């Protein structure tokens, strides 16, 4: 163990952006097994909201969304991988919490607002979480899920039996084979997990969420420039959606628009990207190659996908959601 830190790559000390540019590609830590967030398809091509976020970063830096290497991270290894410099950014549906923020890394921006939910069999005829009093619940260990569940049941004077597993396959397998009455994890994951069961229509996700799970990409502490770049990559996608710039119309808008907002975002006016160590057309590159936040959400999670996750809290603030991008000025 003691030898490990000695083989740190250099970018842990120099700026991360310089390291990424010198290397020629971004190294992105993903979960590797959550439908809609990061999952390779039959051809080995990665898909998902987290994956597209890393592609957006690569598009902003290299003008090429393919200059990313995805490395799946277990929930146990993810923080060490980031801290040791193995990955440049962790886009792995990771909940932003104070202890992680202070101890492990920085969280530039919330890319998805989630909450912990419960998957149960329809045959139990349950509608509320409190009806799971005295039930057995399968959880994935090492996640905030373990803490939330313990807190929630304890504060309500309810009891439960817990069985924890190291990864989501084992957890779902145990739930499906009758070891547990409920499987609890972030609601966003439950939509995908339900699809993996043999009979998805025999299971239901309870409406209630028992926790706040703001998912944010993670970066190493002490690199403000890189932190800004990661945050503004997300904001650019939000601002683009708010301004009506989509992957479909971005070419046309760049040539024809009269709106000063759109001009600033797309780099027609001003060189705002330079502050981030990028070119002026950084946001144009993101929308052109990957799309705005709405495009990415619809492609990976929305009604057109098998997951059919509602926008909910992840709608733009102008539509009653929480996604709010600071202005590009």
């Amino acid at each position, binding site marked *: *163990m*003691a*030898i*490990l*830190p*000695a083989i*740190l790559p250099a970018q*842990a*000390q120099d700026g991360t952006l310089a390291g990424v540019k010198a290397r020629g590609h971004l190294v992105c830590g993903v979960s590797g097994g959550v439908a809609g967030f990061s999952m390779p398809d039959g051809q080995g091509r990665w898909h998902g909201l987290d994956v597209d976020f890393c592609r957006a970063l690569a598009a902003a830096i290299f003008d090429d969304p393919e200059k990313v290497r995805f490395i799946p991270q277990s*929930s*146990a290894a993810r*923080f*060490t991988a980031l*801290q*040791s410099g193995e990955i440049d950014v962790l886009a792995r549906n990771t909940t932003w919490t104070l202890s*992680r923020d202070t*101890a*492990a890394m920085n969280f530039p921006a919330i890319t998805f607002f989630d909450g912990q939910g419960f998957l149960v069999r329809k045959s139990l005829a349950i509608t509320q979480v409190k009806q799971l*009093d*005295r*039930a*057995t619940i399968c959880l994935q*260990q*090492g*996640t905030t899920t*373990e*803490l939330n*569940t*313990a*807190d929630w049941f*304890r504060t309500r004077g309810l009891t*439960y*039996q*817990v*069985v*924890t*597993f*190291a990864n989501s396959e*084992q957890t779902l*397998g*145990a739930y499906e*084979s*009758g*070891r547990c*009455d409920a499987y609890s994890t972030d609601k966003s994951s439950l939509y995908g997990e339900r699809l993996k069961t043999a009979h998805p229509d025999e299971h239901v996700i309870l409406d209630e969420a028992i926790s706040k799970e703001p998912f944010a990409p993670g970066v*190493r*502490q*002490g690199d403000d420039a890189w932190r800004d770049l990661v945050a503004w990559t997300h904001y650019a996608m939000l601002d683009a959606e708010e301004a009506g710039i989509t992957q479909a119309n971005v070419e046309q808008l760049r040539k024809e628009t009269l709106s000063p907002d759109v001009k600033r975002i797309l780099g027609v006016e001003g060189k705002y990207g330079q502050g981030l160590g990028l070119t002026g057309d950084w946001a144009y590159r993101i929308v052109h190659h990957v799309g705005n936040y709405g495009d990415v959400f619809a492609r990976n999670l929305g009604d057109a996908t098998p997951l059919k996750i509602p926008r909910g809290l992840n709608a733009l603030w102008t539509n009653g959601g929480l996604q709010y991008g600071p202005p590009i000025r």
Partner: protein
Amino acid sequence: MPRRPFRLRALALQALVALALAALVYFAATNASEKLARQGITAGFGFLSRAAGFDISQRLIPYAAATSTYLDAFVVGLLNTLLVSALAIVLASVLGFAVGIARLSPNWLARTLAAAYVETLRNLPLLLQLLVWYVAVRVALPEARDPAAWGGAYLSQRGLVLPRPEFFGIAWLVPLAFLGGLLGAFAWGRRAARRVEAGGRPRPVFWPGLALVLGLPALAWIGLASSGHPVAIAWPAPGPYGPEGGLGVLPEFAALLLGLSTYTAAFIAEIVRAGLNSVARGQGEAAAALGLGRAKTLALVTIPQAMRVIVPPLTSQYLNITKNSSLAVLIGYPDLVHVFMGTVLNQTNQAVEVVAITMAVYLTLSLGLAALMNGYNRRAAPVSR
């Protein structure tokens, strides 16, 4: 004096190597702590006294998410490792000796079955066997809401739930009587053996021993009941989601115990067979000539002499059981690795400390077990003439 400078040189070389090793360790340690500090990871063991906040499915000591610390979680995991390892060592030994002896049996069926057992279980990966026990066997059991009930016990996919005697207050007499019975039976056996060695007639050992071990606690139980202090029993009962109360045996625990024991028993059987074969054939023939039966020959002549060949490789198997118990992670049994290197490491991010502690625990367990077995081997080895 031509040898002296040579020995000095050898000594100097050894000192140099030792120094270089120490320097390497020192460099690695300072390098690690420096790099950790640069990455903003707080080093130290202070995290052990912080509240854990998570629940564990099997706990041998009082443990609650809200009030227990990471140190408590560590102890819970350690005890779970010790429990499953100790029971697996006992089970694997009993089964392994039985199969090993059966492999040399004159009975064709016993011999063949034993060989089939060894060749099947020894040649399949332990991981696969654990999954068979945990998944295939468990799924074949009744569902939790419709468990099989037998004499107050319930069996289902959630495991086995047994009636639990509550040994509080004066009821402690029952386990105490059991312990006394064990000691008594042991002493009886020693006395009987001494008698035979001194030239006396053999006395029965097994039945009186069994009577002591079972009879004394039974007497205590009946005595308590008739004196108005009966031992309370917590009976399990069906709940909304399955049987509740009583003494629960988790399916994760049962699968790990059975998987570890049956797998390791196959190796122990081969070690026992090799040990028995190592005893000179004449010994058995001489015993037969004296009129000893096969069982007596084995117990009095062959096995005692085989032990010195059996014990060293047997020690390795016991160490393997202890270390293999960490495969618990794959079937959700909360052993030390599962709880401490899994949940605690993830929540505290103290990777270096947690891994170091875990390594130290396994090292201590292994060295302790090996020392114990070596001590036994030195005492049990027959005096060579």
